């Protein structure tokens, strides 16, 4: 769910946990290198962690509930309905 940390690339700096407006992460610098994505349901997908990660080690995954609804623009035209 929400932020996905590449644990190989993560530097363990904790910037993501510090800047996240929702406290999605929990980072115990003493015991853990990689922050834990503790509260995924509180992620707003603002991208702050992605933008500020110095190692570019975070990607967001949008839950299926958040999917964008879209169509090919050229389908926006009158439909050929059967004649009455």
């Amino acid at each position, binding site marked *: 769910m929400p932020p996905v940390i590449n644990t190989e690339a993560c530097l363990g700096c904790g910037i993501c946990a510090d800047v996240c407006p929702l406290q999605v992460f929990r980072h115990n610098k003493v015991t853990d290198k990689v922050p834990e994505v503790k509260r995924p349901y509180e992620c*707003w997908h603002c991208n*702050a962690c992605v933008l500020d990660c110095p190692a570019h080690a975070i990607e967001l995954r949008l839950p299926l509930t*958040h999917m964008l609804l879209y*169509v090919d*623009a050229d389908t926006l035209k009158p439909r050929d309905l059967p004649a009455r």
Partner: protein
Amino acid sequence: MIPLKKQYEADVAVIGGGIAGLMAAIAAADKGARVVLLDKANTKRSGAGATGNDHFLCWIPEKHGDISVVYNEFMDSQNATSNDTPLVMRFLETSPKIVNMWNDWGINMKPTGDFHFEGHAYPGRPRIFLKYDGHNQKKVLTEQAKKRGVQILNHAPVLEMFRNEEGVSGVLALDVSGDEPSFIMVHAKAVVAATGYVSRLFTTDPTPSQMFNTNMCPSGTGDSIAQAWRIGTYLVNMEKTYRHAGPRFLARCGKATWIGVYRYPDGRPVGPFITKPDVETGDMTSDVWSSAFTDLKLSGRGPAYMDCSGASREDLEHMRWAMKCEGLTALLDYMDKEGIDPGRHAVEFGQYEANLVTNGIEIDINGESNVRGLFAAGDMMGNISGDIGAAAVYGWIAGHHAADYQHLALDEGMPAQAGERMAFYSAIYERKTGASWQEANFALQQIMTEYADCGPHRVRSDTMLSAGIKYLGDLRRKMEKELYASDAHELMRAAEVINLLDLGQALMVSARERKESRGRHIRSDYTFTNPLLRDKFLRVWQENGEVKMAWRDRLI
């Protein structure tokens, strides 16, 4: 008992480090005040402007000429019905100074080389939204505040405000930087409340199962509006709830950054303003016909699509750049990953749930409330709208005047109510089982959505609101007994729900009192719009535990 670990003394305490709060802190510090700013998260990335903005309502004399050009255009917008004119004039008069200040500090207000206004505009009419690149605005403002000696306490949500016989006297906050909570007390001569937009009061419209999928940041829960309400501050326009619109299902502001045309599924434009994408104006349809998306859906003629196809490659690139300025990088990343190309694909738009913006603390021309020394700025001002522009400008005005209180003596004593409030929050943490904050928040949203929702297609009435007020009281008593939090974070969230409940109550009593239908406030028992109430604002406040109400004229 949760320990009180830190105490600070300040001339000015600022609650919330969004755009308004940081500008207030900067202005107060410029006048020599000792400023302590408390933020729930980190000022570098908190609030509605966390990752950027791209349009700033302002008056630039060399572009607009007379100020009335901007005033008239602004007062035609949806939320202008809550505006006191003298405040709007002060905002606009001060805006060029703030815009130039931001530009000097490194927020690019002239990304095309000069001041340029676009978006949220009607074809052929003046434009009032300055296109700017706000992607770095929070970092720049944080640096400016620090440079002036502002003490920033991050991860320190405020729980309560206090007042003595004279006026406001300080705030109690929670340290949520670790799992273990502790209290922070800030004794202050003046307080600027700036906690922004209110989300999470109503059931999330696009995704009922995902409470945090809101158009503005879901950490905005109107905390300092509720805290001010608890100490007798006047709130105003609480019944005028707002519903934003944007892409579905990912809820997000920034619709004016999209350059396309809103279309019916058969390709016809939904509104009369543009027939092909237009970088300069955007499509004003959803600003004017605010219920359009819901009307289309409920009538079966929808859904409505935002169609940017037909725009030139250059214009599409411009929109992409603007979305980055606006802070919509998560949306862009997602669209890239999914192969959604605005040049070829039309994205469905819809309305979101009701929120509070321009419903809140009533301020005077200097940003001060009826409680001496308590100021408010930003989206939680009850009697002036204006988004990022008004937040920046009124934040600065409020901080400037709050600093005048630095010459008073500081009340260093522990506020009379502090012990009781610390015990209240400690009890939530010390309880071992009970209701989680999520449970309480969902329960509150159910009551708000069922009994006090706003239009389109949803009605309020005396009987429904009276029932809702009763049920909120029941929920309050249950929450007081049962809310529990297992760590500092959960205690912060529990406090947010307590604040939201207070706002729900203020909203419902106001909505019951406005006995007419007006805009989104649709009454089934008063279906008409009463011209006599057009320029009437409803003020609500608490006095000795009772809710009081009074009508006043809009200041013209």
